[in-house]
């Protein structure tokens, strides 16, 4: 068991997500940066879907009442075990009675604490992910609070043999240097003028303070809609469409764009104009308020190739740790 002595700004239990329920309005939830979540699990010998603790902007402090192997991956956060600094992206041993204390993020926005055996909350619809909007899953459907006691699963065999094994530097993302987010434009992008579409990929976008697990609201060039007589049922505003489903990662344009993330609203009546590719949703999730980014237009084949390349990287990391 681990006890939360300080929860951080927003820490939740997440795995790779809850699927098959999007049609009833249930988003996947799950780790916002699945790459870092997966690598954390590899390091401690878990299945990649084991639940980790996702910490946003600031780490938490956790007291262990048993020996465990842990790994911290994702945004750079200085961390100590009983005041002794530890490395990130490395399997580390925590002993019973020790406290793991994780500080503020300096490169990226979200870090994942993987613990051998995983965080053992009750699965809901086959997932341990937290969906805070309606209070489902994870630890009591909410972000962690001081004093919460988290049960742990049985550690995988040989977990302690992994202590000290680390991810090679070449595989560790430098989140703050990634400022190009790849997008497959389309969906209802016929609603935007050509000039506006052009501006969307040439001018910078700034992450606003309104950026969370539901969506990242961006600020940038003025959007310009193609004037039309609104179709029946859509509503009167030029940004309105007949309510439709929103892909995870899609960019909706109520005026300034919102990119929908893991706790996405699953549908609605604002035009969507493109979708951030699956690999780059994780990179976008590592952006902090006020950071700048550009949208890069790619096609679906490029998007699949990027996904394949990331899976090869993950396979290489996994192999390097065996």
């Amino acid at each position, binding site marked *: 068991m681990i006890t939360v002595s300080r929860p951080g700004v927003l820490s939740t239990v997440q795995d790779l997500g809850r*699927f*098959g*329920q*999007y*049609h*009833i*309005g*249930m988003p996947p939830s799950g780790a916002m940066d699945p790459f870092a979540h997966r690598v954390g699990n590899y390091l401690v010998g878990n299945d990649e879907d084991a639940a980790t603790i996702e910490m946003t902007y600031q780490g938490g402090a956790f007291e262990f009442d048993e020996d465990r192997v842990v790994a911290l991956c994702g945004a750079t956060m200085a961390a100590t075990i009983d005041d002794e600094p530890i490395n990130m992206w490395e399997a580390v041993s925590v002993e019973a009675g020790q406290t793991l204390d994780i500080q503020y993020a300096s490169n990226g926005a979200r870090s994942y604490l993987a613990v051998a055996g995983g965080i053992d909350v009750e699965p809901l619809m086959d997932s341990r992910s937290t969906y805070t*909007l*309606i*209070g*489902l899953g994870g630890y009591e459907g909410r972000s962690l609070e001081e004093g919460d006691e988290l049960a742990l699963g049985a550690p995988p065999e040989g977990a302690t043999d992994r202590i000290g094994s680390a991810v090679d530097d070449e595989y560790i993302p430098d989140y703050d240097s990634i400022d190009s987010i790849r997008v*497959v434009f*389309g*969906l*209802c992008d016929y609603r935007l003028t050509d000039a506006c579409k052009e501006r969307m990929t040439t001018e910078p976008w700034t992450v606003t303070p309104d950026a969370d697990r539901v969506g990242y609201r961006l600020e940038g060039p003025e959007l310009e809609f193609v004037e039309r007589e609104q*179709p*029946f*049922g*859509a*509503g*009167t*505003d030029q940004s*309105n*469409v*007949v*309510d*439709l*489903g929103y*892909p*995870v*990662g*899609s960019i909706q344009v109520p005026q300034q764009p919102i990119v929908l993330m893991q706790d996405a*609203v*699953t*549908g*609605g*009546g604002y035009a*969507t104009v493109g*979708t*951030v*590719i*699956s690999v780059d949703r994780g990179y976008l999730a590592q952006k902090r308020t006020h950071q700048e980014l550009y949208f890069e237009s790619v*096609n*679906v084949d490029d*998007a*699949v190739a*990027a*996904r*394949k390349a990331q*899976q090869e990287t993950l396979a290489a990391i996994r192999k390097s740790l065996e």
Partner: protein
Amino acid sequence: MSTIERVTLPDPRYEFGGDDHVFVELDEAMSFDANFEAMAITQQLRKKDIDGIFEICPANASYMVRFEPETIDPHTVVETLKSVAEETDLSEYQWDTRIVDFPVLYEDEWTHETLMRFRDNHQDPDATDLEYSAQLNGFDSVDEFIDAHAGAPHMVTMVGFVPGLPWCFQMVPKDEQIEVPKYVQPRTDTPSRAVGYGGAFTAIYPVQGAGGYQLYGRTPLEVLDTDQNLADFAESMVFPQPGDILDFRRIDRTEYDEIREQIEAGTYEYTIESVSFSPEEFFADPHGYNEMLTEVLRG
């Protein structure tokens, strides 16, 4: 006899949503033709249980799927959707669905308090949402407007936004359909179970939260029961399913309170009848068909 005017749908637009979604727009405008097509195709897709496709989401005039590109190539997904559409013939289509009694307390105190608090976000700050909508749609009074809203059943044409929120499209010819704009600026607050209207759709808000629809009333019934306490939520925490037919019924405060008491005690059972829905028969004589449906429900 009035009929539902049939719509010839344009060629569907197949659009990639990143590397893992395909969005299919059947029409830009809402129509029963577009919605039934979306329902028929997604029902077929579910039956086919295609390896790699793990989310199938019908919407009002479109649908969407999500898939694992490792298992099925995105271009193959589009080809598959096209061939399913090819095989789907609405004229031979019918489906088993439910008609549900849905009591609504129109002009309730809670949505009234909320809408008064957000007058500055509204097109017409000097009227209530009901007064504004009644006038815009050519009704002489709010009562007549409510009678129209509750006067014919509504079909659930999409579920989403948050778990359990149904979009409902009234089962009447287009010239009888209500259409209203959404708020100029969305509200930051809406009571749970509020019954709202935007575009051509009624929505029921499952939980308290932001919203932009015109507010007409509040239902005592739940659309989302995360603890699955109520008998009608035994199989899913979400009540409405696409294709369900909801028959809104105007109730008074006494009945509202009685139903709430039973809901909170976990004893309330929704009044539901099973029906086989035939698009062709509905298109030919919607009013007659609705009468038949409500007859099944109310005996």
